[in-house]
């Protein structure tokens, strides 16, 4: 038997599991820098709200090899930054993480699957509504992922109190969105136009915002979507960006 056949090609990709915590705000993420909302918005080239309508784990020939990727398809409801078709598919390295099966190789309760699993990546399913901040595509436009992996993926949930208000929350429970220092990916201290992590008023008083948007910095946990979108749009505007929009005839695009 060929020796290579005696091996299982199980592969797992763990983002280096050391978190760069903003000082004094631990919070997490797996070898990924912490982003505040302004740097997250500036780092992303596409920010949108939409519903996931398809998840396709597969593989593609990228950079000379057959890499495990997942294609996520969204029905786009609103674009806050960039231009997107009404049905939009993006491709991310790795396959979705899942809990380990009984009797299966595992790490921290997660399955170590054949194929690449990008630990720390956002987890969502078909039917979920999200607000996503996607980084500029890399690998010749083939791949992207949410800024800071799961930090840039906000799950949207409707309150069950009958009011119908929609709230947004990322895997960090929104920690650090207004307090994490600029991490140097796209911005450094002093670059902030809206978010000032070191100040008592972490959202600048000089920026025109509704009371609801301004009060987001005082809230913990899930944030109301409407004011959050207003704030993201304001950040984008302050950095000179044009309004995001849905383009084309609604056909699927990338």
């Amino acid at each position, binding site marked *: 038997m060929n020796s290579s056949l005696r091996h299982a090609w199980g592969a797992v990709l763990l983002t*280096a599991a050391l978190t760069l915590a903003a000082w004094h705000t631990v919070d997490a993420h797996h*070898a990924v820098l912490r982003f505040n909302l302004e740097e997250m918005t500036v780092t992303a080239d596409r920010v949108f709200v939409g519903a996931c309508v398809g998840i396709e784990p597969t593989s593609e020939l990228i950079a000379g090899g057959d890499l495990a990727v997942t294609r996520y398809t969204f029905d786009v409801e609103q674009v806050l930054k960039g231009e997107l078709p009404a049905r939009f598919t993006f491709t991310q390295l790795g396959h979705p993480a899942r809990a*380990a099966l009984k009797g299966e*190789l595992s790490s921290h309760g997660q399955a170590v699957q054949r194929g690449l699993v990008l630990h720390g990546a956002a987890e969502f399913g078909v039917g979920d509504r999200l607000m996503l901040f996607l980084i500029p595509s890399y*690998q010749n436009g083939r791949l992207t992922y949410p800024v800071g992996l799961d930090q840039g993926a906000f799950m949207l*949930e409707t309150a069950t109190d009958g009011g119908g208000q929609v709230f947004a929350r990322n895997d960090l429970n929104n920690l650090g969105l207004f307090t994490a220092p600029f991490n140097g990916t796209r911005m450094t201290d002093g670059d902030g136009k809206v978010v000032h992590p070191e100040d008592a008023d972490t959202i600048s008083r000089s920026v025109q915002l509704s009371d609801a948007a301004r009060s987001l910095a005082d809230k913990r946990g899930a944030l109301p979507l409407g004011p959050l979108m207003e704030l993201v749009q304001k950040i984008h505007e302050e950095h000179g960006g044009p309004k995001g929009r849905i383009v084309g005839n609604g056909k699927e695009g990338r």
Partner: protein
Amino acid sequence: MRKSLSNRSATRILAAAALIVAAAAWRVEAGGPLFVLNGVPILWANRVVTGGPLNSTTVTIDAQGRRNVIYHVDQGTLGPLSNAQAVHFTERIFSEFSNIETSSIKFINGGPIRDPDTGLPVDVKATNVGKFLSFGHPTFQNPIVFDTDGSITGGGGVLGFFGALSFEPDFSALTESFVVLNGAVITPPALLSPTSFLGVFQHEFGHFAGPLDHEQINGNIALFRGEAVIPAGFTNFVQTFDLFAPFLETTYPFFFRAPSGSVLRASGFPDTGYFIATLDMDTKNALSNLYPTGAYRATTGSIEGQVFFTSSGGGKIPVNGINVVARRIDRAPYPPPLGTQAFPTPPTLDADGVPSVPPAQAATDSLATVSSAVTGLDFGAGTYRIQGLPPGQYEVMLQQILGPATGGSGIGPLSFQLVLPFREEYFREEVTSNIVSDFTPVTVRAGRVTANINLEINGLDTGEPERAKEDPSHLTLATAQDLGPLPARVAGSASVEDPFHLIVDFGGGAGEGIQDLYKFQTTRPVTIVWMSLEPQKGKSGAGDLDLFLFRPTANPDVVKLGSAGNPRFSATGTSHELIAVALGPGTWFLGVGAFDGAVDYELRVIQNIQ
């Protein structure tokens, strides 16, 4: 793709496929193995491993029978570092692990990464990295990739990757791994200094080397975390950082910056990267536990015991997933007094800018001579064994693991860390103490295991409730059996043959039916609630039950895990399940799902004493 769970006929099938194991890895220990299979740590293969298009080798066995892991290095630059500098960094990191005297595994530079198509040395870039990370076609090189400009990792803030590329066919051992280092983060204007970067990747290469899990000892205190028990007198982050950060465990899952006002920061050490560029005792022990030399267990001792809580009803229930720490205290007590300095004189720097380890001093010995384990290792439920301890007297303490230490930042086996009534407790004969100075010293002797160092979790209301019986039918949210005031205890039974209405959606197309549904109320602003499922003593029957905690759901048929209202579940491969969580006021549902067989169970819901 996640399947719809709205179709009942489908849910039966999905329930049968509900294979989730939150705590499948319950035999893992802190700083222990990163990968486990059926509770067994997954190590590097203990054989010569050769394969791939170049017929290259990733593991050899030397004349002494030791594993030598052969890695290969990129030919490119790493941000501002030349290739020679980047290779030097890599060799330096691996040499730290190879030079652990009590560990037998060694890491050897096998030379440049070679292109699998040409066999020539190669600069791995965004244009060819797929050849080395290819799904299904490993090259058997253990590649260390220098992503010089971040084009491999993308611009989303990722510092680097570690990954396992191949295992033995039965997943019993690792045969190839890789690391990608993102040089963009040290490219001016740099986020990290090269020395700090060295520390970051000392941590990452620990995952490669063992592969090792994370650990928690001094890090929480250095970080002034709310979950930590901050020593008396220490009132701010500056104080804790300056004393505890130099003793930071290398595989503590969080990297952090020094606060303003820190003496260390003013001295040129702006973050913890500088201090994890050298290995701490617990990390050395973790690798030694997996690959022990003959002298390891002969020259050091171990402490073993069980962590448990006393249930309402009297029994002792072992608890997995608790961090236990042993600090040597025969030089000086723990904690050191405020004013103690890790570096009474400034540390010396080596050629790479890495500071010397803090000098040995009695006052800080408890920070340096310390090791840990998480309960539920190979020694039984709720049991820990801390190994590699130099002879002496120790203070043994249990700790709550940091809440965010899950997933890729996880410590130990649990998907959700347990919330304890007391964040830290100390071993004392008869009754566990929650006062750091009130403890019984534990003696460690070389080559010996000091056993029965048992710690009881205190602070739970273990008053005896009436033992309720299960209602005949309580399948739906509307008919969920009310457990009444806490503590509560109910005797029930569940079987895969029982009907169910509610489905737990795990995602990925997997779900599990809830055969028995209970509810209870919490009224305090914050209540720590422990929910324990155990098989009834003296009853026959075998199977596997799981436990789920969730809020009232908008959809009466499906509970979706991971959504905001559904905080916890426990689904080991047994019927011993435990959820321990802090809850706000409200009504909570508790579901018992039968994964396999039929089991008579006791469900206890206990709250903390106010």
